């Protein structure tokens, strides 16, 4: 087992950066990417010429060549892209951590830049099929990610008695945190139960407030070895454990064709994550859980072991997800209320919590779970201070 201990606390996030978030930003995705990456390097106190590793998403439009030559990176010896949209967010950091821990690189930058606010909705493109088995779903009018996840949500509610109030608890917790975060798109926009219950449907049983924002923006973070981290400008946030998950017989976001569609990729990533961790779900102080849709939170709470199967809805009751609750989540507002940038803001918020600099700080937070998109091949990180 000695080799398997290789990743634990071997690397740390030492820099984070972001642009403004808005429905519409004037600059290009490439420019935004450069701004976020340079901000993260500046935060770390590391020169761009020292960067020798990059990682991003397959859906990222700015490639390594463009980014590296723009920011003045050094010679790259490791670069990687992870698939499945928001499922790849944490894996970008995990790949860099693995590369650095194994000596393939020394300074890694992960990033995501996206103009999803002002750009086109991906599902409107009928010639380029999304990486789903579209022939079995799209002709019947199951067109958007919201429709695909709504199908699992309805079944989940049917099997376990989860309610719209449970989904509202998720939307409200995220909105409350966004109301504390001046950088959040929903900073000055409180949410009430009445607003939620009377909002328009997107795909029943999911309403407007069950869906994430459409945002322009970019974020990045810098990863180095734990030895190097000690010399950086900020307090290191260690990558304690990292995992990806693509379960046997999984089918992507339209996961309707296996024995147990409600046991998603989170379960696979979680098994790996906890196996390599020194602590357990009950020891997590704060979590940043991927929230393209509210329903992904109860599903993820179950997958990552915070409650039993079918208990994710009930877990949200009594303010459990709020500051001071059992498990404060998405303390920047998340994808639902801060910004939807394929979950990268969740990574940076996890770092802020463990630095003690969040706008909704959990007192003395020392451990944070960050997850990528549930319902697609996914990834997750356990961070610790």
């Amino acid at each position, binding site marked *: 087992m000695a080799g398997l201990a290789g990743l634990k606390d071997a690397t740390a996030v030492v820099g984070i950066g972001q642009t403004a978030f808005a429905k519409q930003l004037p600059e290009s995705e490439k420019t935004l990417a450069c701004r976020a990456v340079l901000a993260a390097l500046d935060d770390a106190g590391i020169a761009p010429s020292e960067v020798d590793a990059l990682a991003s998403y397959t859906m990222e439009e700015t490639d390594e060549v463009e980014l590296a030559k723009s920011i003045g990176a050094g010679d790259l010896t490791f670069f990687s892209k992870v698939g499945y949209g928001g499922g790849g967010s944490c894996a970008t950091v995990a790949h860099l951590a693995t590369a650095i821990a194994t000596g393939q690189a020394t300074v890694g930058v992960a990033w995501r830049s996206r103009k999803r606010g002002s750009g086109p*909705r991906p599902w*409107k493109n*009928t010639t380029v*099929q999304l990486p789903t*088995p*579209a*022939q*079995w*779903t*799209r*002709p*019947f*009018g*199951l*067109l*958007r990610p*919201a*429709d695909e996840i*709504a*199908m*699992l949500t*309805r*079944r989940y509610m*049917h099997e376990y008695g989860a309610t719209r109030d449970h989904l509202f608890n998720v939307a409200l917790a995220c909105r409350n945190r966004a109301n504390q975060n001046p950088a959040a798109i929903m900073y000055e926009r409180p949410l009430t139960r009445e607003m939620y219950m009377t909002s*328009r*449907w*997107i*795909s*029943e*049983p999911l309403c407007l407030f069950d869906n994430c924002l459409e945002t322009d923006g970019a974020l990045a973070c810098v990863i180095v070895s734990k030895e190097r981290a000690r010399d950086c400008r900020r307090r290191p946030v260690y990558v304690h454990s990292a995992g990806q998950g693509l379960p046997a*017989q999984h*089918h992507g976001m*339209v996961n*309707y*064709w*296996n*024995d147990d569609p409600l046991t998603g990729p989170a379960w696979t990533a979680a098994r790996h994550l906890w196996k390599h961790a020194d602590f357990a779900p009950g020891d997590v102080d704060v979590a940043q859980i991927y929230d393209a849709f509210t329903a992904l939170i109860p599903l993820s709470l179950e997958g990552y072991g915070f409650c039993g199967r079918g208990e994710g809805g009930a877990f949200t009751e009594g303010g459990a997800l709020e500051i001071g609750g059992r498990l404060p989540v998405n303390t920047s507002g998340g994808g639902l209320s801060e910004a939807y940038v394929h979950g990268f803001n969740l990574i940076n918020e996890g770092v802020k919590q463990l630095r003690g600099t969040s706008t909704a700080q959990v007192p003395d937070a020392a451990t944070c779970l960050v997850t990528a998109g549930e319902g697609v091949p996914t990834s997750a990180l356990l961070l610790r201070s």
Partner: protein
Amino acid sequence: MLTPVVDDDGAPFWEYAARGELRIQACARQDCGELRFPPRPCCPHCQSFESEWRRMSGKGRIWSYVVPHPPLLPDYAEQAPYGVIVVELAEAPRIRLVGNLVSGPGAPLNSVPAERIRIGAKVQVVFGHGGQGGKGGHGRDGKDGGDGADDGGGAGPLPQWVLERP
């Protein structure tokens, strides 16, 4: 309306559908025989590349459903809100098909009010038009007509679903 963008693995399904038959890919190795969906090159249970297309009864139950509202692609927005269902097949509940609950063969997506859709409701497959008679027929074991349709097929009519007890 979107027509299926058919791949090599899925083509036989749509060719049979064009004839009004609901067939699902199955392993053709004698000691395996597992059904699988969506279709793929080899059997995930025994790794055999031999497959056949087994005729289903066309009976099933609604496993889940959604009711999409705009913004949607224009042809779908016109019919919204409409129901989209996932049906688990009577012969093999793990085999689930996405489809629409309609009032009869070829009827529009919104021809059954969404309020009438229930998880667990028994449904029967029908084929809109161009098929040879609507119903899927009853569970013969797939030894008939093994080599696919010869009409160049691609995507014919889509399978649709009607309530067994309307």
